[in-house]
């Protein structure tokens, strides 16, 4: 029973963090109609940035977010402006995907060049043994709780932005129909750039928590992006609530497999669930059919 409860808590709390990263991905998909394959490596980049700030400037990772999030936001806007916006024509969809892939390769190469391929783990206060709290008879690190709280704060902020601000209204309009949004006077290019920035910006927060929880190297980005993609598709592409729900669901499931079977197979749960869902419900668990129509 204890292991079961532990697996569930770990899964839900970590799932929240994955949910945050997946929300960025699904937001970008909804507005720009492209899958940001680079999201995984950007999470890792965020982790490395937090690591750098901590080891060289001794800035606490949570305070460091004040620097890394704007930095990642700017990176996202620049990438959108330089590589995504110029794409036109019939093959735009596949081209934008490949452009993101290329960006991912470049970032990965730079990270390898700068940090090597050794696994890094952060040695901050949050990873030390005293930063834990006892629940259900075992020690739960604070970072799980704080990471989950951080994810909740960001997701609430994104929801607030989407449903309570003028900018959010234009984002939702753009998600529904590009042409119509442009006709009513929305600067679709600006909305797209800012959305890409926001989607990439949240990876700084996600990456920080991920880095606190796991050891990472530049190659970890592949593992992450495939998990995130599975989550986003499971939840239904472009559905923010779906991404959150699917993230908590599959991470909890993987966590259970971890405990009861074998950690090496927990990844299969992701893809197995994905394939199963696609066979019976191609639009994803929470997706609407129209949202995927061409």
């Amino acid at each position, binding site marked *: 029973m204890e292991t079961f409860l532990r697996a569930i808590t770990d899964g839900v709390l970590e799932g929240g963090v994955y949910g945050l990263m997946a929300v960025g991905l699904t937001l970008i*998909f909804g507005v720009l109609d*492209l*899958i940001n394959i680079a999201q995984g490596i950007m999470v890792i980049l965020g982790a490395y940035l937090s690591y750098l700030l901590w080891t060289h400037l001794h800035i606490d990772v949570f305070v460091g977010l004040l620097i890394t999030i704007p930095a990642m936001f700017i990176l996202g806007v620049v990438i959108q402006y330089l*590589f995504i916006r*110029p*794409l*036109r*024509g019939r*093959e735009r*969809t*596949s*081209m934008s*995907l*490949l*452009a993101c*892939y*290329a*960006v*991912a*390769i*470049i970032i*990965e*190469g*730079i990270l*390898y*060049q700068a940090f090597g391929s050794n696994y890094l783990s952060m040695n901050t206060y949050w990873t030390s043994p005293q930063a834990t709290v006892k629940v259900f008879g075992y020690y739960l690190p604070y970072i799980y709780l704080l990471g989950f709280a951080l994810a909740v704060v960001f997701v609430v902020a994104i929801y607030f932005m989407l449903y309570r601000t003028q900018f959010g209204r234009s984002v939702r309009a753009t998600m529904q129909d590009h042409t119509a949004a442009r006709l009513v006077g929305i600067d679709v290019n600006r909305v797209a750039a800012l959305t890409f920035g926001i989607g990439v910006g949240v990876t700084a927060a996600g990456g920080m928590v991920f880095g606190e929880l796991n050891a990472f190297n530049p190659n970890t980005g*592949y593992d992450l992006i*495939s998990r995130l*993609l*599975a989550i*986003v*598709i499971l939840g239904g*592409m472009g559905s923010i609530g779906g991404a959150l729900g699917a993230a908590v669901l599959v991470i909890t499931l993987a966590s259970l497999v971890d405990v009861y079977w074998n950690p*090496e*197979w927990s*990844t*299969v749960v*992701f*893809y*197995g669930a*994905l*394939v199963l869902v*696609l*066979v019976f419900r*191609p639009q994803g668990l929470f997706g609407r059919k129209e949202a*995927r129509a*061409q």
Partner: protein
Amino acid sequence: MRSLTLWRGAGLAVLLAVVALVPLAGNIVLTQVGVLVLMYVGAAVAWNIFSGFTGYISLGAAVFFGVGVYTVALITKHLNLVGGAVFALYPLGGLAAAAVAVPFGLIALRVRRHTFVVVTIAVFFIFQLMAYNFSWTGGASGLIPPYLNWDQATVYNPFYYTALLIAVASAVLAWAIWGSRFGLQLRAIRDDEDRARGLGVRTMRVKLTAFVISGFITGMLGGLYFYFQSDALPQYAFNPFFDLTIALMAFLGGFGTLAGPIFGALLLEPYLGWAQQQVTNTYAAQIVLGALFLIVIIFLPRGILPTAAEKLTAFRAIRQRRAAGRATGPPPGLPVGAAAAGSSPEPTTRSAS
């Protein structure tokens, strides 16, 4: 027009002859790189038969490749085959990959565009994970083929000619498909799948057939790779870079064209092979590859060959128009170019845009 076809045929024959003579130069490194180049030509052509013709971007070609690698590796191991007998197994590797392609395609081809890409990536990771975790695949330490006690100087020649055979055969197959009814159906799916279906194309069956053909060729190449590289390791048999590289080759040369993937592979693989030799700086090579990718996408979105062909046609048209203008005689006082521009609205609109 007939002379053009003749020139093309002659050019192809010369190219083939040169390629076939490469191993006779006796340079072992050259032959070794040549095997990889030809393998990638074959893989890019195979990828293009499905993805290029139908417009479904698959990043799961490495699934077929890996299945081919492991099929040949496992049969070799259990039957204790040695020497040239292993070469006979390549079609079996292809068949196994084709058998995998059927359920893979039945699941993945239900969805389109982005979702399709993601599903292919997901299936790819499932296979890589299985290769790592099952005991009969040898796990992370992989499988090793029997030692080849052939003459060191010419050891790669059989691999070279097998790869050449597969590459040429797939190129011919792609060419045959391109002009056939089947090829037209594939391209109709690429242009507008719903309309193609409305016109009576059995889209699922057609897509699946192309997917299986593409898988068969890639699987054979996987078998070849296993014996050539002397290992079956999960990270090389199921390599995400493989997917990306062949996609880049096809896009570089010209996505969905016949010659594009061949050209792209011939251009790119030597660079990649060279980059792999630079052990100290592989990451710089990776950054260059990504940058190259971006440049192609932004500046040559249709690939080198189609863009070049377009420029050539435009150049020919201008020259022809000039020649025609000279024959009829330009109006006095007007330069030749202006007369040509006046006779057709095209150049003016082009300069205006």
